[in-house]
């Protein structure tokens, strides 16, 4: 893999395409840090919640398409999720009380916990950017 390579995909903003989008992130994450299952699991989990937020909470059927942009660097992956639904900045969601074992309201916490940097810009489109750094450099 070269430096700063990127992947873009545009998918319908529907749950039926969730698994396809997640498989894309999972495969891309392995290019950054092959052999690190934790790295892949965590960025996949964060992306999964972000996609849920857009599709389920971002005005439902009016979301239309979502754009996924993946940037692969030597030691990190950045995933940008762009949508045209209702804005939701996961950085502003309150932290859950884990001791009470909440059944909902966990998505933003998972996003923040499993990534190193989160930025959000509302507008047309809304853009959520999540960066995760690998513990070591690329291994292939």
């Amino acid at each position, binding site marked *: 893999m070269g430096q700063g390579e990127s992947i873009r995909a545009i998918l319908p903003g529907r749950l039926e395409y969730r698994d396809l989008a997640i498989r894309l992130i999972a495969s891309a994450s392995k290019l950054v840090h092959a052999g690190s299952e*934790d790295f892949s699991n*965590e960025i996949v989990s964060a992306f*999964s919640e972000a996609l849920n937020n857009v599709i389920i909470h971002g005005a439902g059927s009016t979301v239309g398409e979502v754009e996924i942009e993946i940037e692969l660097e030597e030691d990190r992956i950045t995933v940008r999720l762009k949508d045209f639904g209702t804005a939701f900045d996961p950085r502003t969601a309150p932290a859950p009380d884990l001791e009470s*074992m909440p059944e*909902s309201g966990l*998505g933003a916490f*998972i996003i923040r916990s499993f990534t190193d940097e989160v930025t959000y810009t509302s507008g047309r489109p809304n853009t959520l950017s999540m960066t995760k750094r690998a513990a070591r450099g690329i291994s292939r």
Partner: protein
Amino acid sequence: MNFSREDTGIETALTIEGVLDALTAPEIRPTIDSLVQEKRLSIRVDLSSLRMIDSSGVGVIVSLYKRCKAFGGVVRVDGLHGQPLAIFKLLRLDRILGE
């Protein structure tokens, strides 16, 4: 997602395979409701073939745990690995529901 339920005496084995997420969680909710309504006392949730879970899926498992606990039932989760294990650890559920 595929799931199955097997009752043996007071024990119930609930096996969930594949992906338990916002798309598939509604499919298993009626079974969860049935287990609670029947007041099953001992439920083992086998997630050894679960590949992926999200917060919606976690909500299903936690709902089962809490509702069963309310009438004195016990829910245990077995076989966590990979991405589902990472989520359970983050949410501090592995020590409560784990093996």
